């Protein structure tokens, strides 16, 4: 069954080159000794230094990290409990609720951003508050939770139904069952969801753009402003750093997955009495 798919492979290779070429260009020119983003004049780390000295960038980075961490953790809590609640609902309630839950995921993010902006502006006019960190945070939590739920619910369904009965058989109340048995079992789902939600928050631009107002800036908002006005290789430096971080994260996630996969295979083998 040896088939040669050389044509397809070459095309695929070219596509990957297409995907990575601009990124490579970005990275290369982040080390450029002049301001030019197209003519190479020499190696330097200056732009990285400037990056760390740039107060605006640093503060918006801090904002981004703060918002993302808080939002994803809060979302994880809300989302996990919501998932458990949904799991126990009658189908006729669960279906529509899950659909509503999916709206932020499915909707174009400009609409999510704009609709939330409308809410905050109208409510703000009536109740006397402005767009700012709180509204930003609320917006992030709102679009983070669906990812948690999407990640946790399948895990809930994979649970052995007998676990509940076993725990209660041994004397746990419902709440104890949740804390002692269910959450530990679905923890991988929660963590995965958390990571995804965190990444979504860090990466978000459009929704933050509409809900943060003028006093608060996330990193993406700052980058946007920079690309619109002052083009500087600092942006290249940010890109390179981000690329490195994402690469490391993905490798870690992948290693976790393949380790989990191996554990599952071992479990199956044990059940079949082969190990």
């Amino acid at each position, binding site marked *: 069954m040896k088939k040669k*798919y050389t044509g*397809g492979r070459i*095309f*695929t290779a070219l*596509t990957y080159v297409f*995907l990575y*070429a*601009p*990124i490579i*260009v*970005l990275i290369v*020119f982040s080390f450029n000794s002049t301001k030019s*983003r*197209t003519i190479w004049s020499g190696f330097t780390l200056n732009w990285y230094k400037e990056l760390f000295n740039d107060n605006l960038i640093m503060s918006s980075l801090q904002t981004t990290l703060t918002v993302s961490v808080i939002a994803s953790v809060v979302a994880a809590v*809300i989302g996990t*409990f*919501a998932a458990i*609640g949904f799991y*126990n*609902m*009658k*189908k006729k309630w669960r279906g529509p*609720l899950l659909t*509503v*839950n999916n*709206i*932020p*995921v*499915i909707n*174009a993010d*400009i*609409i*999510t951003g*704009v*609709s939330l902006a*409308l*809410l905050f502006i*109208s409510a703000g006019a009536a109740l006397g508050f402005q767009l700012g960190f709180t509204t930003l945070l*609320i917006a992030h939590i709102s679009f983070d939770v669906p990812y948690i739920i*999407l990640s946790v619910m399948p895990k809930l369904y994979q649970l052995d*139904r007998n676990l509940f*009965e076993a725990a209660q058989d041994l004397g746990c109340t419902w709440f104890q069952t*949740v804390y002692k048995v269910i959450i530990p079992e679905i923890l991988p789902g929660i963590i995965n969801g958390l990571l995804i939600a965190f990444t979504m928050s860090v*990466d978000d*631009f*459009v929704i933050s753009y509409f809900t943060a107002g003028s006093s608060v800036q996330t*990193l*993406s908002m700052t*980058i*946007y402003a920079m690309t*619109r006005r002052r083009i500087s290789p600092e*942006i290249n430096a*940010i890109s390179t750093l*981000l*690329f490195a971080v*994402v*690469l490391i994260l*993905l490798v870690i996630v*992948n290693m976790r997955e*393949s380790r989990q996969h191996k554990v599952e295979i071992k479990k199956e083998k044990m059940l079949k009495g082969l190990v």
Partner: protein
Amino acid sequence: MSRNTQSVRSEKGIGDSWRTVKEFFEHFRKQSFAYPYVIWMGLFVVIPIILIGVYAFTSAEGTFTFGNFSGMIDYAPVFGRSLWLAFLATVMCLLIGYPVALAISRMSPKTQRIMLMLIMLPMWINFLLRTYAWMSILENTGLINRFFASVGVFDWINGLHAADLHYTPITHFQLINTSGAVVLGMVYNYLPFMILPIQSVIVKIDPFVIEAAEDLGANSRTVFRKIIFPLSLSGVISGITMVFVPAVSTFVISKLLSNGTVMLLGDLIEMQFTGAAYNPHLGSAISLIMMVIVIICMSVMSRFGEGEEQAVVM
């Protein structure tokens, strides 16, 4: 393993009817876990969308009107442009993405995972930065133009027209600030969203079905035409949706790669909510239309599409 010891108790939980009052309350207690979130959703998902609807049908004075929609006629070209460019981008993603998905699905599982990881890697870099990357490549003094200049392409072209008195010599090709640049940006950003669902569906095709086709006399071209392609269509539909929807609603790509000269629906909406021309009513009307487009696409996808879980989660 004896069947006699199996539990006779009926299973409680999902959607079963309850027999005692105690069970009734137990059931609601379990459900109550979700109530906080339900309230949250109502506040921050449902109400905002209702607000959009309200604003869309109200005028600045607060009266019910269709005026916002009729005012959109002026912007028909923007609608057309957005739909057309999104369509182009989708088609290109399909033409590039399908062969790549097919090629990946034919690799060994280990290689597949690496290839998929490599596709997802750029997706995780902020798409502002990815789009920005193209700026320095496409600009008038960007990499491509500099390359052409250094090999003398422009001199050669100018030389061809030397005799023409009305000819102004060129120093660059206009790559940036064109609709082409915007489409390129869309394709670059959304290509992985086409590749992933298609690949995930093709990989799930029962290998025995392919063997059965070969067993019945089909060579590899026929196998692709009659088996693989028809069975991959659900992934294709997902991919199309996952490219078209963001493409039709973006404003960043057009802002960065065309400086707003190529105005898309997204730019239009953004303008209504920020900046000088503040008209949330018009903006909501346009948003409403966009939501309708998105809902149509999404329902097509959920009925006929498959393999989108991969892409959504990523």
